[in-house]
C-alpha cells in the first residue's frame, strides 16, 4: 500500500455501504478515523508503511452501523462516495464522511487480508 509519487496507486478494495444512524439530531456512522496528510504517519499503528498518510479506521464501535456493514478496524479508506481519501487532510476526511444531506456512505476500503486472499486465489 505504499505509493510511488507519479505512479497510480493500485489496491484490492472492498465496497462497504454504511447507512447512517440518526441519534438525537446527529447522523453517526459508528467508527473513528485517524491519519491525513497533515498528521504524523509514524504513529499510525495500523499502516504497514509508516510513511502512509492515508485515512485509517482506528475504532469501530460495537453494534454500530459500520460494524454491521462489515468495516473492520485497521482498514484504509480509499474513497468515500467517489471522493478520494488517499491525499486529504484529517479535517477534509471528517467533512466528507459527515455530510448532513447524505444518509448513506459508500466506502472503498482496503486491507492486507484482501490482498492475500486475492493472491492465494490466483495461485
Amino acid at each position, binding site marked *: 500500500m505504499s505509493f510511488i509519487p507519479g505512479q497510480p496507486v493500485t489496491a484490492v478494495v472492498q465496497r462497504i455501504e454504511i447507512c447512517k444512524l440518526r441519534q438525537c439530531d446527529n447522523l*453517526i*456512522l459508528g*467508527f*473513528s*478515523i*485517524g491519519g491525513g496528510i*497533515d*498528521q*504524523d504517519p*509514524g*504513529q*499510525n499503528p495500523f499502516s504497514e508503511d509508516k510513511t502512509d498518510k492515508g485515512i485509517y479506521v*482506528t*475504532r469501530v*464501535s460495537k453494534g454500530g452501523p459500520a460494524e454491521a456493514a462489515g468495516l473492520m478496524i485497521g482498514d484504509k479508506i480509499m474513497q468515500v462516495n467517489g471522493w478520494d481519501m488517499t491525499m486529504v487532510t*484529517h479535517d477534509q476526511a*471528517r467533512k466528507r*464522511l*459527515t455530510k448532513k444531506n447524505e444518509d448513506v456512505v459508500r466506502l472503498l476500503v482496503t486491507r492486507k487480508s484482501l490482498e492475500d486472499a486475492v493472491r492465494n486465489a490466483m495461485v
Partner: protein
Amino acid sequence: MWSVTSHLVYTFFTSHVPGAERSRHKSRSKDGSRSEKSVTINAPPAEPLLGDSSVRGEEVQDDNWGETTTAVTGTSEHSLSQDDIVRITKDMEDSVGLDCRRYAALTVSAVLGLLVLLTPIAFLVLPHVLWRPQDCDTACQGLLISLAFKLLILLLAVWALFLRPQRARLPRVFVFRALLMLLMLLVVVSYWLFYAVRIIQSQDKNYHGIVQYAVSLVDALLFIQYLAIVLLELRHLQATFSVRVTRSTDGETRHYSLGQLSIQRAALAVLENYYRDFAVHNPALLMAAKSRAAKHLAGLKVYNVDGPANNTTPSQSRAMIAAAARRRDTSHNELYYEEMDQERRVRKRKARLVVAVEEAFTHIKRMQEEEQKKTPGEVMDPREAAQAIFPSMARALQKYLRTTRQQHCHTMESIQQHLAFCITNNMTPKAFLESYLSPGPTLQYAREHWLARHWTLVSEDSVTSGLKDGSVFLLKCIDFSLVVTTRRISFIKLSEEFIDPKSHKFVLRLQSETSV
C-alpha cells in the same frame, strides 16, 4: 617471629595425633577470623612491604597498640627485614657512583658557565692589558652598558637552565642538554680563535670594534639560550602521546598525556605521576589471589604408571591443565561469598570507627584567647590533646586497618602525629579519617614506603630515542613493575559549521482521531 616459629613447631609435633587436624584448623581459623572478642593473639606478621617473608632478621612488631595505648612510649614500629638490609647496602654502594656522576655533570655546567661569563670580559680587558687601544666614545660606552646587562641576563639564564639540582639520574646522558652545552662551547672556542688570530696578533686599535665583537658573542650565546629553552622546556609541553600505565600486581591503570620526549625522560615523567596518582602498593591485598591460584592446581597430581617418576613430559603437563579446566570448580562461589562477607565486615568496622572518632573529637575543644588567661589549668598543646583522645579511638581504628589490611602502612606514632595535625588545623573527624579510609598515593606515607627509589627501565628501543606510537617499556622496582604503552594522539580534523539562529523552527506532531 616467635609466634610463627612456635606455630610451625606446634604443627610438627601434633601431626601424628589423630585429633590434630581439628585443632590445627581451629587455631588457623582463630587466627584468621576478625573475631569480636579481644584481639590478644600476636597475629602472624603480614607479608612485609618488600620481598617475601623469609623472616630471618625481623623484630617483633607490637600490633596490639589498639589495646595498650595509655601512655606514649616514643618507640617507633620500625621493623627491618633481611631484604631491607640488603637493599640499604646496595643503595650505599650505588650512591657513591651516583654522586660522582651527578657532581661531574654539575661541574661541567659550572665550568661552562664560568667560561661564558669571563669570555666577554676577557675580550674587553685584554686590549687594555696588552696594548693601548683608543679611548671609548659615547657609542662605545653605550655598547658597554648593553653588554653588561646582556651578560647579567645570560648568567641568570645559564643558572636557571643548566645549574638546576638534578632531580633524577637517567641511565643515558640527556642528549639535548649535552648537545647544547657542546654548541655553546663551540661558539665560545671559535670566537676565541678569531679573537686570538685577528685581534691580538694585529693589535687592533679600534676599541669600538672590539666592544662590538664582544657584544655579538653575548648575543649569540643568548640565542643559544633561547634554543635551549625551546628544546628543553617547551617542546615537550604540547601533548603528542597518550601513555597508559599499568601496575603489574593489581592492574591499576592511569592514562597520561606526554609530549615528544625521549623514553628515559618519559619514564621520569611517568614515575613522578606514579607517586602522586597511584594508590600505594599493598602486597597484603594480593595474597587472596595467590592462594586461589595455588588451590587450582593443587588438587591434581600426575602419576606416571609406566616410566620412572619426575619425568614431566609436555604431554603430561598439558593433560594436567586440561584436567584442571574440566574439573568442576566451585571456587567462584567461594570468591563471591567471601567478597560479600569482606565488604560487609569492612562496612561494619568503618561505621564503628566513624562513630568512635566523632565521639573522640567531641572531647576536645579549642580554647579562645580570653579563656586562656582565665583558666591556665588544664591547657594542652595539640600533641598532648592528640595523645589524650587517641586511646578512645585506637581500638576501632586498629581493627579497621586490620580488616582492610593496611595496618603495616600506619604506625601509632604517625597516627598520633596526624591527629595532632588535624586538631591544630581545625579539621573535622571526617577529614582526619580520610587518609585511613582508602589507600592514598605513595607520597602520603612514611619514607619507608618509597624506599624503592631505584627503578630499572627495560626497553627494546634505545632509551634516548623518542617515543613512538606503540612503544612499550617497563619500569621495574623490587616489588612490582609498571607497564607503559604509548599511543600517538591522532590527527584531529576540526571543521566549522554555521547554523543560522533563525533556522531553529519546530512543528507539532499531530495524531488526532475523530469519530464519525
